[in-house]
């Protein structure tokens, strides 16, 4: 049951947060990085970022960086499980893109 639930599309916020965390980063860094990655299209709201970080920690897709756990400004990094999720999502997105280009490209000819 839980496995099936994990196979939906990731939200934009979660996808970009996890991409950011291929390097260790704290909250403010994630927010800035997501704005940069999306060239200003996606601005993470603080409430959304807080909720997403907590859920991702619970799911163990990201973790707090060792040794930083007691300091106030926590840094986070993606886990192996999280990387697997990103791989699966990339595959899904690739399929969408490929099919889109194939169909639309055919019509343009």
């Amino acid at each position, binding site marked *: 049951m839980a496995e099936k639930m994990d196979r939906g*599309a990731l*939200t*934009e*916020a979660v996808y970009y947060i996890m991409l950011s965390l291929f390097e260790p980063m*704290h*909250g*403010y860094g994630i*927010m800035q990085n997501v*704005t940069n990655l999306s060239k200003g299209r*996606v*601005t*993470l*709201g*603080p*409430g*959304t*970022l*807080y*909720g997403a970080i907590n859920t991702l920690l619970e799911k163990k897709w990201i973790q707090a960086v060792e040794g930083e756990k007691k300091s*106030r*400004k926590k840094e986070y990094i993606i886990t192996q499980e999280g990387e697997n999720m990103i791989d699966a999502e990339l595959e899904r997105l690739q399929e969408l893109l490929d099919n889109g280009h194939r169909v639309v490209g055919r019509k343009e000819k």
Partner: protein
Amino acid sequence: MKKTVFKPFYNYEKEEKWLNQMSLNGLQLVGYYWAVYVFEEGKPDEYEYRIEFMRHFGKHPENLEYIEFLKELKVECVGTYMYWSILRKKKEDGPFEIFSGMEDKMKQYKKIRNWWFSLAALEYFIALYEMILGIYLKNSNESVTWFPFFCGFLLIVVATCLFSVGIPLHKKIKCLEKNKELFDN
């Protein structure tokens, strides 16, 4: 120079608008306590204000943890009241929306709608109790039968007001739910 204003609000969106208008006029909110707003004169339009309905009541440890986290993101908590918190961010630090993504926005609207609807339901329930009490007293020939009816009537008026605060939010949620069939975010 500090300025204190007493102004009760039911509609948090109107409250937000008012606070941002005050900010535009150079009055920055620095404190809140029971519908009393304390403003400080400052640079016009320096801060943007937002109101959030939090996950927990009052000074719950998770609320405090959240407010600490907000500080990291350059968001300041000016005041809290029950589930509500008034937040602000300097305009120069970028745009300020508490939630991005439709799912989170909808969750927030739902929490606020349910808050008003449950308060209204509680008042309707007490009103019903008062009415039943009134009928009981009338049947037993007591002299103060008008009083429970009066209370009951008053409660019904208040409950209907509370209920009507939740209605625009309810409509917004229904509208977003339709969009959700088409969009992921």
